[in-house]
Each structure stands twice: as C-alpha cells, then as structure tokens.
C-alpha cells in the first residue's frame, strides 16, 4: 500500500468495494493452472466440465440470495450491461405489444441512457419525479401506466442518496397492469433482502463489485414465467441460450457467486453494524453548521450518508477532504461539470447539490475510519466556512 492510500480513509463503497479475501481466494483458485481453468463451453473434456460445475455452483449461490432459480440468471460484464440488456432487450422484445416505458429521473445513467436510446428509436418514455425525499409513490406509477406500456424500470436503492424504493408496492402495481418490472439492484444487493418472487420483480440487474466481489461481472435475472426471451445485445457463439454469448469468465463468476454467498450469510449482522457506523458519522457531522441530510431519513440504505453543506463551494469542499476517499456532487475536471441530477431532482439548489458529499461505508469500515472522517470533515468545514465568511453575506464595510 502506498502512503497515500494508507493515509486515506476509504468511504466510497458505493463506487466500488475492496474484494473480500475469501472471494479473492476463490477467484485465485480458478486462475490456477492446476485447477479447472477450462472453457465451460468445452463440454467434451474434463477441463470444460469442471468449469461448468463452478459456474453452476455460482448460479446457485447467486440465485439463492434473490430467491430465483439458477437457470433464470444471465451472466454479464456488470450492472451497466445488465441494465442495458434488461431495458433494451425487454423493450425490443415487447415492441409489438407497445412502445411505452416508465422510469424515474433518479435512475442510474445505464437505465436513463438506455431509455434515451429507446426514445431515439421511437419509443416514448415517461420519467417519474420523486418527492423531496427521493421516493416515488405506487399511485404515481399506476397513473403513468398506459395500455401500450411494456416495461417499468425502477431502481431499488439509489446510488447517490441510498434512498430505497418500495419495490414490493411497485411490483404489485406492475403485475396488476401486466407490465414488466425491471429493478436495478446494484446498490441494494446484499444490503437489503431482495426476493424476486415476493417483490414481483421480472428483471433484476446487479453486479459483484458493489458487494465485495470483483469488477467486470454482473448478472441479469429473468423471470422465466413472465418473460421467455429478450433481444440480445451481443451475437455470437450461442452461449447462455444466445441471450448473452461470449466465453464465460469462470473466475469472475465464481467470485461473484462467493461474494453473494457471503452476503447471504452475513447480510443481517453486517447491515446493523454498518448502520451503527453510519449513525455515528451522522452524529459527528450532522450538527455542524450548514450540514443537511439528503434523501429520506429512514427509507435508505444502511451504508450511504449523503450530506450537503450550505455556503461552501463544492469543489473546494471535495478538495479540502483530501484524506477522505468519498464521492462528491462536483468535480472541476469532470466531463459533465453539471451538479448531480439526482440531488437536483430532490429540489436542492446548485450550490447545495455541488457541495454534497456521499459517504458510503462497507465491510471493512471501522470505527476509527468514521472518527477520522468526522475529524477531517469538521476541519474542512471550519476552514472553508471561515474563508467564505458566510459567503452570501456582503463584506461588512
């Protein structure tokens, strides 16, 4: 570890997580020459067969966590691909029935940009707006549905605020209207229970790297009772029933399986540990002048704390938090330069949206990390507030 890393407290688990050593070990085994490094498509020899066994076990582990069956999973390269495959694939497949989609303005770009692509192709998309806490209501959703609506896409937990939608209620509206429901669970998987049956989910996107698994692997759950097929995004050697061809990345999938197996075992205890840490953090910084909480105070992930600071400039806030690895609503050289569309949609001013910090905690976060974060945040705020001297006030002259 370099000194820079050692000195920097990592509170950016919502961006990506470290790989759990148990997951790593499981992956490394698949990378050993002496193990089943084969191509699971090579069904004619033992190397291929062993790889297929590994894939099968991973499918069982992943399916178990979401109460699905292993054959209802398609492996992908991550949640971006899963989201695209779900939204584009289902919309295209159902295009004969209708060309109207409903989603929410606070979805991840992987969903929003897929929807934008559908609009280019002549589909109509209704974008629901959440209330000031980030929640949408099942009633608003029901009102948005049309006879030609084929798909609703609503994320489980928001990646910026951690706000958690009531998927069960949304699912039952969708079922009543016989509309498919896609849920992006990239942030919630393993933090909240996900049950595709109980919550009436038809398509579920998630990945491993937000859950102490490897980057570059994800899955899409397809409810086989409700949707037989979707249009693929990739064409090739026919792997995965042609829905997603390409050689399966055995070590990646094994890692995802192990990561989600661990979550199944440890989720409950871990969620309460992490939410204690989050509460400790909020106690430490919530009373500082100008600090406000973004998103619903209860309906949110245990692991995310998103705050804004009134009267402080966003980039400088981020800059002053040098010793903290967190995400912020603002970045000088960021390609967009726009403040977070998620926070803006909650009604925040540009200043507050930019001066926002997302703390996201996870498996390896300690009390000491939190205390250090409180210290650094307090100090940064004190400096910037002294510097801006209330900011909007005129100089007393």
């Amino acid at each position: 570890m370099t000194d820079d890393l050692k000195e920097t407290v990592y509170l950016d688990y919502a961006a990506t997580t470290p790989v759990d050593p148990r997951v790593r070990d499981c992956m490394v085994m698949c990378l050993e020459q002496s193990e089943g490094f084969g191509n699971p498509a090579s069904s004619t020899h033992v190397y291929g067969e062993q790889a297929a066994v590994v894939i099968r076990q991973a499918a069982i582990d992943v399916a178990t966590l979401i109460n699905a069956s292993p054959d209802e999973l398609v492996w992908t390269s991550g949640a971006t691909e899963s989201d695209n495959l779900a939204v584009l694939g289902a919309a295209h497949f159902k295009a004969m029935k209708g060309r109207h989609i409903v989603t929410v303005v606070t979805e991840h770009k992987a969903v929003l940009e897929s929807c934008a692509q559908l609009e280019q192709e002549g589909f109509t998309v209704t974008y629901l707006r959440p209330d000031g806490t980030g929640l949408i209501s099942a009633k608003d959703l029901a009102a948005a549905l049309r006879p030609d609506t084929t798909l609703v896409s609503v994320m489980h937990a928001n990646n910026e605020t951690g706000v958690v939608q009531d998927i069960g209620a949304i699912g039952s509206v969708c079922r009543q209207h016989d509309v498919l429901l896609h849920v992006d669970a990239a942030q919630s998987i393993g933090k909240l229970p996900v049950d595709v049956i109980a919550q009436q989910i038809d398509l579920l996107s998630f990945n491993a790297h937000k859950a102490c698994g490897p980057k570059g692997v994800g899955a899409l759950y397809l409810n086989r009772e409700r949707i037989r097929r979707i249009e693929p995004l990739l064409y090739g050697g026919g792997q995965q029933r042609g829905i997603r061809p390409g050689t399966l990345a055995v070590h990646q999938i094994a890692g995802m399986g192990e990561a989600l197996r661990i979550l199944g075992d440890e989720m409950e205890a871990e969620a309460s540990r992490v939410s204690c840490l989050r509460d400790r953090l909020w106690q430490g910084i919530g009373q500082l002048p100008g600090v406000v909480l973004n998103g619903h105070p209860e309906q949110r992930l245990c692991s995310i704390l998103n705050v804004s600071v009134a009267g402080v400039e966003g980039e400088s806030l981020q800059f002053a938090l040098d010793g903290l690895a967190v995400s912020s609503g603002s970045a000088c050289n960021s390609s967009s330069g726009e403040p977070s569309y998620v926070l803006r949609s909650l009604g925040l001013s540009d200043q507050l949206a930019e001066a926002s910090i997302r703390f996201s905690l996870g498996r390896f976060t300690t009390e000491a990390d939190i205390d250090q974060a409180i210290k650094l945040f307090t100090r940064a705020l004190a400096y910037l507030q002294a510097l801006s001297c209330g900011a909007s006030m005129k100089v007393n002259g």
Partner: protein
Amino acid sequence: MSRYPQQVVAYFHRPVCSGGTMLQGEAGSVEQGAWIAIAADCEAGQLKNVGFHAFACPHIIAACHWAVEVLEGAPVQALQDIQLDKLQQEFEIPVEKAGKLLILKDAFTSCYAAAGSVT
C-alpha cells in the same frame, strides 16, 4: 490529488486572513459559483494586511492566497495589475474555467476603486 497542480495544493491551505479594513472590494456571487472579497490597509501608498474571503473553487482560492501574498507591501496600484494569464499559468487553471478568474480580477479592481475613495 494529481488532478490539481502542485501550486494549488501548496496555496489552498493557507491561514485565513480577512485583511484590513481600509480598502474593501468584492465581486461574484454564490449563484455565479464564485464570490471573492478583498480587503487591505494602505500605509504610505503601500498595501498592508492584504486578505480575502472567498466562496470559490480550489484553483481560485489558491490564486487568492497567492495574490494577497505578492500584494503585501506592494504599492496600491498593484491591486489592478494582477495578471490573469500569469495566474492561469501558475495554477494551471483549465481554459473552460478561466471565467472565474475574471471575478477575481473584478474583486481586486473593486478594492482598488475603494482606494481611490480613501486616499
């Protein structure tokens, strides 16, 4: 953080100095994304206690710290001699953000204007 030049890192975290009370000027606003207030005293035509307040991004805060440092002890008219291209180079300010430098320039100019009314 490597995306900010070393000069920004060096000049960002200086002690806050609000400056004197004789000369004061400001420009920009929170809505514009940058607000800067310059203040100083003037003794025998020389700037003393040059300081500032700012709601601004790291590049601009660093530039302010630097500017008030070089102005300390300089003749009053130096307030309007702040050279933007020099600041831009010194702090490697991305061109698309150069607009913020104009606010800085305006703040110093308005401070100099105050000097006119004082002296």
